[in-house]
């Protein structure tokens, strides 16, 4: 058998939506068309007019990288730069303009984004910004840099894994092995909550899932025959609460089925395992206060996969005080490791993943894999407006063809995986499975603040 290293092919897939420049370069009327800006700009913002080289064309602001060279070189001081109002209006909630536009770039080029000159943000922020990954190994990379680095695996196993194997006296295996699916990336595509995704978009997602060797989670009523045929072993039907398990029909090529949990999930899970022993069952549960208890119950019920669904901003759902996924997942992880049974269940987390680094951070906090939702739409030039009106979509996502969607999504996942490889390499970790719950590779702002304050207040726990 020929050995092939997993690789995500990328190719430039330009957006069809009008660009939303971050920096708007304005040429005032005192411009003398001298062309100094054209010489100054290495990004091609300034060009002479196509039909008449005597005049400068309007600046292509979206190519501007904020270097100010044209502005400082303009002998007439005719150029000014302002922050694009449309850009500033991009996204809402955790979807900052920077996160939206970064994903656009990743989806277009498939490359690791290079942002700004120097770090000028805060050292810590809310949610995932309060987690710093430890990349100390970066000071001693391999001699050949990234090219000479040992393979870093990004594969994850989805399913119930026994904690140990039992053999009889004959030496034959007695442990009953549950089905396990290996995905090449710890990122699944999840259209369950993406109501704006039309048939063509879903088709594109399916093609991307196939290209990436991962799952696409789709509510069962939105799975068409064509979609199923396009990627039969990638599609994971998501069943609504109350689906009758006895009359359930599942395509034989399906590898995993997901159920939104209701009151009687325990019996449902038992019945499912009996009817479809070769398929992985995932229970999708709205993460809320005390979610760790629910997961422990699932463990007891031998449920193979728990899919914890956080809200759009990555917080627990429901009223009252809610935790962010990073804290919630750590609680779940701790609850299971305390019992020594962590490996028996696979945890998928969804919600609040808005940037490449959120994937490894979610995993550090205890998830085995994440599912990508809104990020997928943003990859398709979605602006993540606060009110989504498909009829007046500025990015005309409805008009996107499946191949274009596939290209954009694969580019984004490719760029995200590359960034994960960089982080893993810098952490000195050779496979993403070992990153799960590896809080030793991260610093949590809340923790060190607590520690620091305790020193200030005279010792605290160290008395």
């Amino acid at each position, binding site marked *: 058998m020929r050995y092939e290293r997993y690789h995500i092919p990328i190719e430039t897939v330009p957006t069809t939506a009008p660009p939303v420049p971050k920096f708007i370069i304005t040429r005032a009327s*005192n411009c003398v068309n*001298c062309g100094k800006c054209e*010489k*100054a700009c290495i990004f091609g913002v300034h060009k002479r007019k196509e039909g*008449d*080289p*005597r005049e400068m064309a309007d600046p292509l602001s979206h190519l501007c990288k904020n270097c100010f060279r044209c502005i*400082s070189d303009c*002998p*007439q001081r005719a150029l000014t730069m302002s922050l694009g109002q449309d850009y500033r209006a991009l996204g809402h909630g955790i979807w900052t303009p920077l996160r939206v536009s970064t994903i656009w770039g990743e989806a277009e080029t498939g490359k690791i984004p290079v942002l700004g000159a120097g770090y000028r943000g805060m050292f810590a922020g809310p949610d995932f910004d309060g987690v710093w990954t430890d990349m100390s190994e970066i000071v001693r990379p391999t001699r050949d840099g990234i090219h000479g680095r040992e393979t870093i695996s990004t594969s994850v196993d989805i399913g119930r894994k026994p904690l140990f194997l039992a053999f009889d006296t004959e030496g034959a295996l007695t442990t009953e092995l549950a089905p396990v699916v290996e995905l090449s990336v710890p990122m699944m595509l999840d259209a369950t909550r993406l109501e704006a995704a039309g048939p063509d978009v879903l088709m594109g997602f399916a093609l991307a899932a196939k290209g990436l060797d991962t799952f696409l989670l789709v509510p069962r009523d939105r799975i068409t025959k064509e979609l199923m045929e396009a990627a039969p072993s990638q599609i994971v039907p998501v069943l609504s609460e109350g689906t009758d398990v006895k009359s359930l029909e599942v395509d034989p090529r399906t590898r995993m089925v997901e159920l939104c949990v209701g009151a009687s999930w325990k019996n449902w899970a038992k019945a499912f395992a009996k009817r479809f022993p070769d398929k992985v069952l995932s229970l999708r549960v709205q993460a809320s206060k005390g979610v760790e208890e629910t997961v422990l119950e699932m463990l007891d019920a031998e449920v193979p996969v728990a899919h914890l669904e956080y809200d759009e901003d990555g917080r627990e759902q429901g009223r009252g005080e809610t935790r962010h996924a990073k804290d919630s997942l750590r609680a779940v992880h701790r609850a299971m490791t305390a019992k020594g049974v962590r490996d028996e269940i696979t945890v998928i987390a969804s919600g609040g993943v808005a940037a490449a680094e959120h994937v490894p951070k979610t995993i550090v906090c205890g998830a085995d894999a994440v599912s990508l939702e809104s990020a997928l739409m943003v990859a398709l030039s979605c602006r993540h407006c606060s009110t989504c009106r498909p009829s007046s979509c500025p990015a005309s996502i409805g008009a996107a063809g499946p191949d274009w969607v596939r290209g954009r999504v694969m580019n984004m996942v490719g760029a995200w995986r590359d960034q994960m490889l960089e982080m893993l390499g810098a952490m000195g970790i050779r496979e993403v499975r070992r990153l799960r719950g590896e809080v030793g590779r991260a610093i949590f702002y809340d923790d060190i603040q607590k520690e620091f304050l305790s020193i200030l207040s005279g010792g605290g726990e160290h008395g």
Partner: protein
Amino acid sequence: MHVESADIGPAISPEPSRSPRTTFLAKEESPEGALHQGLARSCVSGSRIVSSSGERMLYSRDQSEIPRFLRQILFSSMPEAVVQAESEEGVLEVLRFASSTGTSVIPRGSGSSPFGGSMPVKGGIVLDVSRMNKIVGVDIEALTATVQTGVRWADLDHELGKNGLTLMTCPSSKFSTVGGWAATGGVGMNSFSRGRLMANVLSVELATPGRGIVRLTQADREFPLVFGSEGQLGVVTSATLQVRRLPERSRPRLVMFPDHGSALAFAEEAATSVRPVHIFYESSLRVSYTNKMLDTPRITPGDAVVVYVEDDASQKAFDSLLASKGLKEQPEYIARYVWNERFFPMKLRRFGPGMLGLEVVASKGSLKPLMSSISSLSTELDLEPMFEVHMLPGDEALLLCFFMADQGNTLLYTLTAFKSLLLTRLAVDKGATPYSVGIWNHAFSDVAEKDRKESMRRLKAEYDPRGVMNPGKYFRLSGRFGALSGLAMEPKLMGPLLRAVLMMSPLVLPVMHLVTEFSKDRLGPKDRPADLRTADECAMCGACVAVCPAYLAVGDERVTARGKLLTAKAMAAGVRITKEHAHRTFLCMRCKACEQVCQSKLELIPFYEELERRLERQFGRDPQEIERFVKYSESSPEYDDLVKRGLVIGAPKHRVGGGPGAL
């Protein structure tokens, strides 16, 4: 392997980079006329020889808008060839050729004088020296500047400013050349304190047909004759000027008066008690036009006196003069505005569109009655005169009188020109002397000092024995029909004739009034196309030529704003233009420097676009040539200098970091 530095790509420097130098030659028209060949053989030092009619046309006129029939019937104002000399040697080559063939040579600077001095009357060669525009050296210690003849005053002042120096005096058209002003007389700004140009020039070099290069200093007997010689003796090729340090502070003071009498009285008093650098007066009509050009009338109506003071003693003297008279001055920003506008009298031309006038030197004492009589005669002649008076040292003053005249109405315009001669006659009869002779003041050339004219005659015999320098003018005017055309301006004939008209005014004036009314009502252009209107509003001052990057690259004035406006006029008059001429019109960097310097504030870019549309319909355009031109300009260091300077003096030159372009 040897690696050229260019192989590793352009270095990123703090200065904007320039593309590698390219070359550009615009399509030339085929030479016309017999003179071209002869000149091409003689001029070997790189002068540009112009013989195509389209380009020569530009040299058949100066700043003034001369009634067509006068120009075309009386004179052969179209030169047979034009030579743009680049060096002294180039000038001498032309003079040698002219001497040996007996061809006339008419020297020309920027062509911004209105008296016809640089206009040919009998064809010949126009010798354009405006491209000899190098500032040879500035001596900061001795406070002198040596310049070539074609250096424009504004450019020199800009250069001096870098060393903390400034001009002693300059003409009201700052875009005229050093040589040109020397030849036409040299009364101008700051003449009140600094005297005429002559007093501020240490030496001049004159290229003459008879004696080659002649160098004259202030000590020489011939030196004063050069100033106001109007190209009779030779061609000024360079001059060493006295300059001065920039004053630490300076301030124009503006006071308004209810009538010209009190204004002039104040001006005279200020002249003696304040000892300012310069004083000038503007009549109330002139002020009202200035107000008209501002968005709102900001200057108090009335007659204005501007007193320009530099030192503290003068400031104090002025303050106490104001206090003793109980007068109030205008706010400083208005004073500065009016002071700045002194350079742009011709921008009023847009209200005509067209303007005519007269310029005489009179004694200070005679000013008041002189202005009164000019005013009353003007009223009878249906003219509204506006006056400007610049005080000169001693008892003299320069009196300018303008009136609006519609250039589009030929009869009315010709009539107004005739009226202005009548007014000059009146002024001369009251003891004034015309400033500059040229063609139009020739009728009054008999009032010039007899001695000076005789000395000129003697010196001309020595410097220009064959009589090729600007013939048919100054001593005796002649034109297409020899001396016969000259009769039109012959002092012995025209002088008394004009005087006779004045004496018979009760008979003549009503007739003139009738004709004026008739032509105003009936003969004005029914509808004037926008481009022709723009062309008529142009002051023809040539400021745009000095700043035009296309002119820099091509050397053909037809690429400049003035040239394009004249092209539009020529096309409207039915003149056939060539394809090459049409295509040159497209050679433009769209830098708007012309709009920036335009004193008439013409909207030139829309005009170009319209003209180009019309030309493109007829002749197409040559995109390759345009592209080569743009590439060439971008690659030329001279263009770089223009851009760094902000293309125009006065454009924003302060910039962040004091990088290129900062002063």
